[in-house]
């Protein structure tokens, strides 16, 4: 079982066929901003069997959201915790789990995230009694972040998203599925987030059946924004799958950080996070 957030380091071993990294953006390096993305991978045994969870979050940056690097980290941790407890509590069928996530996850998560934010704030700014006694949106705003998760077992993928970022499923044949389609009404650098008014209604969820070897990939918008087009983004995903098949998952992920840095430096300038899960055999029922 592995459960951690923040940039990958060689010292922690990730579950087989999973990987993630969080790269500080070139513009953040230039201006001295911290990395405001966070990501995590978790795998463990739950009533559903062997469950793999990927999460990425993109803290807003900008001076108004000055604690968003913590907001993103706390969102990732809260999501992992929340998703695992949903798996334990809604364990009779995948339909029941999906229904529960669709109806209840957003507001359960938001409340837990706010509690975590409040704890963090009180530990770091204990002197700010006034705000701590009456936490307002102004406090949470400083922690603003997006959040994107996927939860996979056997051939079932359940995902959720608030704000930008990309979730894709790339098959060996090269076709790229988007379980949650891009929001066409959000253009020109706009996004939703955990601090949006009425945020619980801004979530989108998906259920997707995996039917052949495929790569589940979650990334923050720093990646797709640095690519020339949707087509180029697809090229990147297809090249990942091709390399995994030709070499191995472990060999392939070695060259990913360098590529992500190039995307940031030559493209978006933004932090880039990527979480991967290579589902080699979705049909095989894992033994309980």
């Amino acid at each position, binding site marked *: 079982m592995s459960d951690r957030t923040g940039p990958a380091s060689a010292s922690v071993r990730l579950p087989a066929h999973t990987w993630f990294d969080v790269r500080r953006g070139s513009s953040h390096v230039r201006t001295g901003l911290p990395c405001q993305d966070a990501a995590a991978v978790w795998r463990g045994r739950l009533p559903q069997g062997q469950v793999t969870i990927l999460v990425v979050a993109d803290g807003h940056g900008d001076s108004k959201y000055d604690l968003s690097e913590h907001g993103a980290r706390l969102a990732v941790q809260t999501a992992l915790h929340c998703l695992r407890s949903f798996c334990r509590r809604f364990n009779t069928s995948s339909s029941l789990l999906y229904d529960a996530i669709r109806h209840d996850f957003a507001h359960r998560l938001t409340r837990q995230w706010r509690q975590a934010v409040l704890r963090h704030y009180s530990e770091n700014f204990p002197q700010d009694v006034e705000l701590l006694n009456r936490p307002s949106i102004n406090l949470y705003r400083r922690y603003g972040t997006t959040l994107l998760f996927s939860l996979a077992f056997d051939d079932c993928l359940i995902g959720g998203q608030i704000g930008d970022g990309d979730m894709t499923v790339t098959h060996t044949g090269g076709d790229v599925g988007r379980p949650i389609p891009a929001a*066409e009404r959000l*253009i020109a650098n*706009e996004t939703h987030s955990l601090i*949006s*008014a009425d945020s619980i209604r801004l979530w989108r969820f998906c259920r997707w059946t995996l039917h052949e070897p495929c790569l589940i990939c979650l990334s923050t918008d720093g990646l797709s924004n*640095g*690519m020339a087009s949707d087509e180029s983004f697809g090229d*990147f995903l*297809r090249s990942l799958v091709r390399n995994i098949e030709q070499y191995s998952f472990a060999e392939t992920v070695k060259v990913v950080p360098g590529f992500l840095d190039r995307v940031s430096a*030559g493209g978006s300038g933004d932090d880039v996070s990527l979480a991967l899960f290579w589902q080699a055999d979705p049909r095989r029922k894992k033994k309980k």
Partner: protein
Amino acid sequence: MSEEFINDGPVLEGEITKRPLQFFWLVDCSGSMRGKKIATLNQAIREAVPEILRALEAHPEVQVMMRAIAFSSSASWHVGPEAVKLEDFTWPPLHADGYTATASAIELLLEELDIDKMNRRGFPPVCVLLSDGYCTEPEEQYERAIRKLDHAPWGKKAVRLVIAIGDGSEYDEQALLRFTNHPEVGVLKANTPGKLVEYIKWASVTASVSSSQSKTFYNDDEVEGGEGEGARNVILASAPQSIQIEDANEVF
């Protein structure tokens, strides 16, 4: 790229590019612009280009793409419709002649702000309108064009600024004001050549820099069933202070 074809390990693909910021000049070159005005304008835009480049050095992840629509008796592409990279952009001098087809110019702009033609990942576009006179096309046509601009997804998001050239009695300030979606800036009144140069530089630089700043958080508080103002998502630094010294006898 002509690399040796040696494949000894995983290689990742996918074209990496900067995100585009589409910049549109809408320039009046009607007969009334003849002479000094058009000369100053040509000069001012030429001077603005390196200033934008310099200002964006701090934002290397932005690729500004330039286009220009010139309008007199009709509107046509002065530069475009293929956009030119800012670093490759030069301003071909404009010559003044004819009427003032402002509405047609906006219609031409709208064609390019089409949701299918714009890159979804792009920054909010910048549109700067420069004019010295009344639109000579029917008022309804102008109104219709503005309304379409206000409703088009990218039209709404664009940073739209107006610079009025010359004496206040020669242009219709209210009509020009309808073009901008930054009422806090209003119509920039360039009544001297110096101001025209200053405003062109300010508008193009500020709009480009502001538009390429970090993202905005969509939160439209629309009136149910109403028109809804929609989200204007770029905040501009304030315009250069200009104290108007005019003949005035009113005591205040």
